[in-house]
């Protein structure tokens, strides 16, 4: 199998043997209560310099209360996996938490674009598909996945993918190196105190991200008893032994929505996504993140019960979500 071409970017990679050893020694198969608040979870499981993955998007079921807590704790030098992301990368870059971004989808707007243009954050271009394959490989415990995207583009050249001659067809195929993030933060509708969790609606890369990551923090709209999973095992997406911390986070995806619970806050989203200037960003971060101590305080003092009630009222489609 001849190597035909090689992307020239550095990429985050762990030998599957090293990931396996981490899983053996550090992933917890004990049935123990992992419930804690955002502050404790981020303090314990997000370290400066970590490679961070999150799932779904700013609009829907994104782990926003955890993103805000990471900013609040002023984590530094993160390398983030910006697949299918919008505001997360913008906020994390605005707060100076991020050095490097694997793209995916960078998130839009001139604010984050300028950070890249200035060289304040370094981007590595992949695609939503190739990053997903990388996570799948990481989750499966294999070193790479072959796929037929990225080929014949500059995206390939700027990625960490390889092209080889496939020994079965003789044709070129790309190899996407496994991705095993240091830490994943994932918001779900329901979890138990041990970390069993399920989502309703599109599952994006929820399971793969949790399986592939060394440390996993789950935030959940509701904490439910374990028997709820055992009664409908086809719906379980994450088993407890993948998980390190469980955070009870009602409105955890705000300003995005969570299906079956509340709609996104379009006004807040628009306000945030129209930020252009550094000053405005810092003002936003101060007001909504640094100046409050917790997700609860954020909801109470910055958003308010009236607004939350309105977002719940708008979420009238429940079919399929329970």
């Amino acid at each position, binding site marked *: 199998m001849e190597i035909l071409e090689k992307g020239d970017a550095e990429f985050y990679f762990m030998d599957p043997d090293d990931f396996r050893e981490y899983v053996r020694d550090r992933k917890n198969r004990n049935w123990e209560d992992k419930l804690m608040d955002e502050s404790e979870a981020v303090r314990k499981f997000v370290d400066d310099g970590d490679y961070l993955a999150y799932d779904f998007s700013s609009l829907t079921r994104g782990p926003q209360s955890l993103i805000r807590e990471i900013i609040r704790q002023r984590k530094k030098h993160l390398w983030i996996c910006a697949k299918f992301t919008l505001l997360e990368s913008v906020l994390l870059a605005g707060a100076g938490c991020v050095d490097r971004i694997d793209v995916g989808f960078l998130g839009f707007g001139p604010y984050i674009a300028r950070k890249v*243009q200035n060289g304040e954050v370094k981007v590595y271009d992949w695609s939503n598909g190739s990053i997903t394959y990388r996570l799948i490989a990481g989750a499966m415990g294999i070193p790479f996945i072959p796929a*037929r995207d990225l080929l*014949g*583009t500059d*995206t390939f050249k700027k990625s960490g993918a390889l092209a080889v001659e496939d020994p079965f067809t003789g044709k070129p195929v790309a190899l996407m190196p496994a991705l095993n993030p240091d830490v994943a933060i994932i918001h779900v509708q329901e979890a138990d105190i041990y970390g069993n969790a399920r989502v309703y609606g599109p*599952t994006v890369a929820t399971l793969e991200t949790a399986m592939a990551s060394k440390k996993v923090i789950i935030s959940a709209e509701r904490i439910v008893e374990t028997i709820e999973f055992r009664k409908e095992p086809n719906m379980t997406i994450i088993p407890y032994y993948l998980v390190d911390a469980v955070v009870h986070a009602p409105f955890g995806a705000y300003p995005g929505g969570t299906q079956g619970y509340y709609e996104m806050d*379009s006004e807040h989203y628009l306000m945030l996504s129209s930020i252009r200037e550094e000053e405005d960003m810092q003002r936003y971060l101060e007001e909504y993140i640094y100046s409050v101590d917790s997700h609860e305080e954020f909801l109470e003092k910055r958003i308010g019960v009236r607004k939350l009630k309105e977002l719940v009222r708008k979420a009238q489609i429940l079919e399929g979500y329970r």
Partner: protein
Amino acid sequence: MSYTDVEFMICQAARLLEDNKTVFVGWGMPQVVALLAERLYTPNITQVFEFGAIGPQSRTPFLRGTMGGPQNTYRSLQWCSMGLAFSYAQAGYIDYGMLGAAQIDKYGNINSTMIGDDYERPKVRFPGSGGGNEVASYCWKTIIVMNHEKRRFVERCDFVTSPGHVMDGKTREEYGLPKGTGPWRVITSKAMFDFDEETKVMRLIAVREGLSVDDVVNDMGFRPVIADDIKVLEPPTEEELRILRDEIDPYRLVIGK
């Protein structure tokens, strides 16, 4: 009846889709195209969203914020993972795809990543591929929809995000991309193109009512092949505009004002 460029492009794109086929639908304009097609022309088309929704009966009005939410994924046939959605595409199950482009070259290579000479310090940085690279790599027929501006039609894209038919002298099949795929139509605010079967170069096949071939070609940074028989693109019909404006996008989030 007057209409915006975006409305024009949406209607052209919607008319290209076939019923009883699958279509990979991305953020924004492609969603509106698919909704319009579903209402008027292709009631049995199956929309596929990369985040894991197959065959929704999306609610209208279109709300930008509902990407992935309950309105957008209403009554899907299947909610699944992104990996599965891309697998359907890679295994050949997805007929149509739709993409935008900041730049395009004559072989249909697309840039949605950055403008400038220096990748490390781009003049303008865009969001990058998203799922666009997969749409362009895997779907059988990719439709590219973009504003017709001279600076967008370039000899070589500053950055090729998603593959066209030929890049830097090599065909997409030589790079290992799936056989028989590639850009199929380019719809702009002024014209429609396909690709010459032999040379794989973009070919003008139709122009917007009231425009000449020169009007179109003078506004391009390269010269396309000109088909022998240039058709005229019918403007949006009243029915199309009514459905677009009243039912699908009353807040004019996509169609513009």
